[in-house]
Protein backbone atom coordinates (compact mmCIF):
# COMPACT_ATOMS: atom_id res chain seq x y z
CA UNK A 1 0.00 0.00 0.00
CA UNK A 2 1.49 3.33 -0.97
CA UNK A 3 1.70 6.30 1.39
CA UNK A 4 -1.30 8.14 -0.07
CA UNK A 5 -3.60 5.14 0.18
CA UNK A 6 -2.40 4.47 3.73
CA UNK A 7 -3.15 8.07 4.75
CA UNK A 8 -6.61 7.88 3.16
CA UNK A 9 -7.21 4.56 4.97
CA UNK A 10 -6.25 6.18 8.30
CA UNK A 11 -8.55 9.17 7.63
CA UNK A 12 -11.47 6.84 7.03
CA UNK A 13 -10.65 4.92 10.21
CA UNK A 14 -10.65 8.10 12.33
CA UNK A 15 -14.22 8.86 11.24
CA UNK A 16 -15.24 5.23 11.73
CA UNK A 17 -13.94 5.36 15.32
CA UNK A 18 -15.91 8.59 15.86
CA UNK A 19 -19.08 6.90 14.54
CA UNK A 20 -18.42 3.95 16.84
CA UNK A 21 -18.03 6.26 19.86
CA UNK A 22 -21.35 7.98 19.05
CA UNK A 23 -23.18 4.63 18.91
CA UNK A 24 -21.54 3.32 22.07
CA UNK A 25 -22.26 6.53 24.01
CA UNK A 26 -25.90 6.41 22.88
CA UNK A 27 -26.29 2.81 24.14
CA UNK A 28 -24.54 3.53 27.45
CA UNK A 29 -26.28 6.79 28.34
CA UNK A 30 -29.84 6.46 27.10
CA UNK A 31 -32.76 5.10 29.10
CA UNK A 32 -35.08 4.73 26.14
CA UNK A 33 -35.27 1.32 24.46
CA UNK A 34 -35.77 2.82 20.99
CA UNK A 35 -32.63 4.90 21.41
CA UNK A 36 -30.71 1.76 22.40
CA UNK A 37 -31.76 0.29 19.03
CA UNK A 38 -30.66 3.47 17.25
CA UNK A 39 -27.26 3.27 19.01
CA UNK A 40 -26.92 -0.36 17.98
CA UNK A 41 -27.71 0.61 14.40
CA UNK A 42 -25.01 3.32 14.43
CA UNK A 43 -22.47 0.77 15.77
CA UNK A 44 -23.40 -1.60 12.93
CA UNK A 45 -22.97 1.20 10.40
CA UNK A 46 -19.45 1.84 11.70
CA UNK A 47 -18.60 -1.86 11.25
CA UNK A 48 -20.14 -1.92 7.75
CA UNK A 49 -18.07 1.06 6.70
CA UNK A 50 -14.92 -0.46 8.21
CA UNK A 51 -15.42 -3.68 6.21
CA UNK A 52 -15.81 -1.73 2.97
CA UNK A 53 -12.79 0.49 3.65
CA UNK A 54 -10.57 -2.51 4.54
CA UNK A 55 -11.79 -4.38 1.44
CA UNK A 56 -11.00 -1.35 -0.72
CA UNK A 57 -7.56 -0.85 0.83
CA UNK A 58 -6.54 -4.51 0.49
CA UNK A 59 -8.05 -5.07 -2.95
CA UNK A 60 -10.59 -7.61 -1.68
CA UNK A 61 -13.59 -5.40 -2.38
CA UNK A 62 -15.77 -8.22 -3.78
CA UNK A 63 -15.29 -10.28 -0.61
CA UNK A 64 -15.96 -7.22 1.53
CA UNK A 65 -19.20 -6.57 -0.35
CA UNK A 66 -20.31 -10.17 0.16
CA UNK A 67 -19.64 -9.85 3.91
CA UNK A 68 -21.46 -6.51 4.07
CA UNK A 69 -24.53 -8.00 2.38
CA UNK A 70 -24.58 -10.78 5.00
CA UNK A 71 -24.13 -8.18 7.75
CA UNK A 72 -27.01 -6.07 6.44
CA UNK A 73 -29.34 -9.08 6.39
CA UNK A 74 -28.41 -9.98 9.98
CA UNK A 75 -28.87 -6.31 10.96
CA UNK A 76 -32.40 -6.19 9.53
CA UNK A 77 -33.46 -9.38 11.31
CA UNK A 78 -31.98 -8.19 14.62
CA UNK A 79 -33.78 -4.84 14.31
CA UNK A 80 -37.11 -6.49 13.37
CA UNK A 81 -36.94 -8.90 16.32
CA UNK A 82 -35.79 -6.28 18.82
CA UNK A 83 -38.49 -3.87 17.62
CA UNK A 84 -40.99 -6.65 18.38
CA UNK A 85 -39.44 -7.13 21.83
CA UNK A 86 -39.62 -3.36 22.45
CA UNK A 87 -43.32 -3.37 21.56
CA UNK A 88 -43.93 -6.34 23.88
CA UNK A 89 -42.13 -4.51 26.70
CA UNK A 90 -44.25 -1.43 26.00
CA UNK A 91 -47.44 -3.50 26.21
CA UNK A 92 -46.38 -4.91 29.59
CA UNK A 93 -44.90 -1.84 31.29
CA UNK A 94 -46.61 0.98 29.34
CA UNK A 95 -43.23 2.68 28.98
CA UNK A 96 -39.97 2.42 27.05
CA UNK A 97 -37.81 3.26 30.06
CA UNK A 98 -35.07 0.70 30.66
CA UNK A 99 -35.28 1.30 34.44
CA UNK A 100 -38.65 -0.47 34.42
CA UNK A 101 -36.94 -3.68 33.30
CA UNK A 102 -34.98 -4.15 36.51
CA UNK A 103 -37.69 -6.18 38.21
CA UNK A 104 -37.36 -9.30 36.11
CA UNK A 105 -39.00 -12.34 37.62
CA UNK A 106 -37.98 -15.96 37.23
Amino acid at each position, binding site marked *: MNNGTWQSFLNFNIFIVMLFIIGLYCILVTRNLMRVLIGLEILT*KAVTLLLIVVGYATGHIALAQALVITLIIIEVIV*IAITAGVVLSVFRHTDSLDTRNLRDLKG
Partner: protein
Amino acid sequence: MINSVILIVMVIAALWTVLTRSLLKAAIGLALTSAIITIIMFRLNSPLAAVFELSVCTGLITAVFVSTISLTKPLTHRETIAVSKNRLRRYWYLPVIVVLSGILLSASNIQMDFTLPPKAAELDVRNVLWHMRQLDLFGQIVIILAGVFGVVTLFREKKNR
Protein backbone atom coordinates in the same frame (compact mmCIF):
# COMPACT_ATOMS: atom_id res chain seq x y z
CA MET B 1 -11.07 16.19 -0.06
CA ILE B 2 -14.62 15.22 -1.12
CA ASN B 3 -14.37 12.06 0.98
CA SER B 4 -13.42 14.11 4.05
CA VAL B 5 -16.40 16.43 3.56
CA ILE B 6 -18.76 13.45 3.18
CA LEU B 7 -17.29 11.79 6.29
CA ILE B 8 -17.69 14.99 8.35
CA VAL B 9 -21.33 15.28 7.22
CA MET B 10 -21.82 11.62 8.20
CA VAL B 11 -20.51 12.21 11.73
CA ILE B 12 -22.68 15.36 12.09
CA ALA B 13 -25.75 13.38 10.94
CA ALA B 14 -24.97 10.61 13.46
CA LEU B 15 -24.50 13.21 16.23
CA TRP B 16 -27.83 14.83 15.33
CA THR B 17 -29.48 11.38 15.41
CA VAL B 18 -28.31 10.80 18.97
CA LEU B 19 -28.77 14.34 20.29
CA THR B 20 -32.19 15.18 18.87
CA ARG B 21 -35.09 15.06 21.32
CA SER B 22 -37.74 13.60 19.02
CA LEU B 23 -37.55 9.86 18.32
CA LEU B 24 -39.03 10.38 14.86
CA LYS B 25 -36.31 12.89 14.00
CA ALA B 26 -33.74 10.41 15.35
CA ALA B 27 -35.08 7.75 12.95
CA ILE B 28 -34.85 10.23 10.06
CA GLY B 29 -31.30 11.16 11.12
CA LEU B 30 -30.38 7.49 11.06
CA ALA B 31 -31.75 7.19 7.52
CA LEU B 32 -29.69 10.25 6.55
CA THR B 33 -26.54 8.67 8.04
CA SER B 34 -27.28 5.50 6.05
CA ALA B 35 -27.73 7.49 2.86
CA ILE B 36 -24.38 9.21 3.37
CA ILE B 37 -22.70 5.83 4.00
CA THR B 38 -24.26 4.69 0.70
CA ILE B 39 -22.51 7.56 -1.10
CA ILE B 40 -19.19 6.56 0.51
CA MET B 41 -19.72 2.94 -0.59
CA PHE B 42 -20.37 4.04 -4.18
CA ARG B 43 -17.18 6.08 -4.09
CA LEU B 44 -15.24 3.03 -2.81
CA ASN B 45 -16.28 0.84 -5.78
CA SER B 46 -18.90 -1.13 -3.83
CA PRO B 47 -22.12 -0.59 -5.80
CA LEU B 48 -23.90 -3.80 -4.75
CA ALA B 49 -23.32 -3.25 -1.02
CA ALA B 50 -24.35 0.40 -1.51
CA VAL B 51 -27.64 -0.60 -3.14
CA PHE B 52 -28.32 -3.01 -0.25
CA GLU B 53 -27.49 -0.29 2.28
CA LEU B 54 -29.75 2.22 0.53
CA SER B 55 -32.76 -0.05 0.07
CA VAL B 56 -32.57 -2.04 3.30
CA CYS B 57 -30.97 0.26 5.89
CA THR B 58 -32.27 3.60 4.62
CA GLY B 59 -35.67 2.26 3.58
CA LEU B 60 -36.76 -0.85 5.41
CA ILE B 61 -35.15 -0.23 8.80
CA THR B 62 -36.45 3.37 8.87
CA ALA B 63 -39.94 2.02 8.13
CA VAL B 64 -39.58 -0.48 11.00
CA PHE B 65 -38.41 2.28 13.35
CA VAL B 66 -41.19 4.70 12.38
CA SER B 67 -43.83 1.93 12.76
CA THR B 68 -42.49 1.01 16.21
CA ILE B 69 -42.40 4.66 17.30
CA SER B 70 -45.96 5.21 16.09
CA LEU B 71 -47.16 2.12 18.00
CA THR B 72 -45.75 3.42 21.28
CA LYS B 73 -47.22 6.22 23.37
CA PRO B 74 -45.54 9.67 23.21
CA LEU B 75 -44.52 11.36 26.47
CA THR B 76 -46.79 13.90 28.15
CA HIS B 77 -45.76 17.56 28.19
CA ARG B 78 -44.55 17.38 31.80
CA GLU B 79 -42.52 14.20 31.14
CA THR B 80 -41.00 15.80 28.03
CA ILE B 81 -39.76 18.80 30.03
CA ALA B 82 -38.27 16.54 32.74
CA VAL B 83 -36.58 14.28 30.19
CA SER B 84 -35.18 17.27 28.25
CA LYS B 85 -33.42 18.64 31.34
CA ASN B 86 -31.89 15.23 32.07
CA ARG B 87 -30.91 14.69 28.44
CA LEU B 88 -28.96 17.93 28.25
CA ARG B 89 -27.01 16.95 31.35
CA ARG B 90 -26.22 13.45 30.09
CA TYR B 91 -25.50 14.22 26.43
CA TRP B 92 -23.43 17.40 26.41
CA TYR B 93 -20.25 15.33 26.80
CA LEU B 94 -20.82 13.48 23.51
CA PRO B 95 -19.86 16.18 20.94
CA VAL B 96 -16.82 17.04 23.10
CA ILE B 97 -15.71 13.39 23.30
CA VAL B 98 -16.23 12.85 19.55
CA VAL B 99 -14.32 16.00 18.52
CA LEU B 100 -11.51 15.30 21.02
CA SER B 101 -11.13 11.69 19.89
CA GLY B 102 -11.00 12.85 16.25
CA ILE B 103 -8.31 15.43 17.03
CA LEU B 104 -6.28 12.95 19.13
CA LEU B 105 -6.45 10.22 16.48
CA SER B 106 -5.45 12.54 13.66
CA ALA B 107 -2.61 14.03 15.73
CA SER B 108 -1.29 10.64 16.88
CA ASN B 109 0.04 9.73 13.39
CA ILE B 110 -0.32 5.99 13.87
CA GLN B 111 2.26 3.85 12.08
CA MET B 112 1.28 0.21 12.29
CA ASP B 113 3.91 -2.17 11.07
CA PHE B 114 1.94 -4.97 9.53
CA THR B 115 2.02 -6.45 6.07
CA LEU B 116 -1.18 -6.33 4.15
CA PRO B 117 -2.12 -9.33 2.02
CA PRO B 118 -1.25 -9.05 -1.67
CA LYS B 119 -3.77 -7.21 -3.76
CA ALA B 120 -6.24 -9.80 -5.00
CA ALA B 121 -7.32 -10.23 -8.58
CA GLU B 122 -10.61 -8.35 -8.81
CA LEU B 123 -13.41 -10.89 -8.73
CA ASP B 124 -17.05 -10.21 -9.41
CA VAL B 125 -19.03 -9.87 -6.20
CA ARG B 126 -21.72 -12.22 -7.52
CA ASN B 127 -19.06 -14.83 -8.16
CA VAL B 128 -17.73 -14.47 -4.60
CA LEU B 129 -21.22 -14.56 -3.09
CA TRP B 130 -22.53 -17.58 -5.00
CA HIS B 131 -19.37 -19.69 -5.33
CA MET B 132 -17.01 -18.80 -2.48
CA ARG B 133 -19.38 -17.83 0.35
CA GLN B 134 -22.10 -20.46 0.01
CA LEU B 135 -22.13 -21.07 3.76
CA ASP B 136 -22.94 -17.37 4.25
CA LEU B 137 -25.95 -17.72 1.98
CA PHE B 138 -27.13 -20.75 3.94
CA GLY B 139 -26.67 -18.76 7.15
CA GLN B 140 -28.66 -15.86 5.70
CA ILE B 141 -31.57 -18.17 4.84
CA VAL B 142 -31.52 -19.63 8.37
CA ILE B 143 -31.42 -16.15 9.94
CA ILE B 144 -34.29 -14.89 7.78
CA LEU B 145 -36.39 -17.93 8.74
CA ALA B 146 -35.49 -17.44 12.42
CA GLY B 147 -36.49 -13.77 12.13
CA VAL B 148 -39.82 -14.60 10.49
CA PHE B 149 -40.67 -17.18 13.16
CA GLY B 150 -39.53 -14.78 15.89
CA VAL B 151 -41.80 -12.00 14.63
CA VAL B 152 -44.70 -14.43 14.23
CA THR B 153 -44.20 -15.65 17.81
CA LEU B 154 -43.92 -12.13 19.22
CA PHE B 155 -47.08 -10.89 17.50
CA ARG B 156 -49.15 -14.06 17.85
CA GLU B 157 -52.75 -13.27 18.71
CA LYS B 158 -54.14 -14.92 21.80
CA LYS B 159 -56.84 -17.49 21.17
CA ASN B 160 -60.31 -16.48 22.30
CA ARG B 161 -61.38 -18.77 25.09
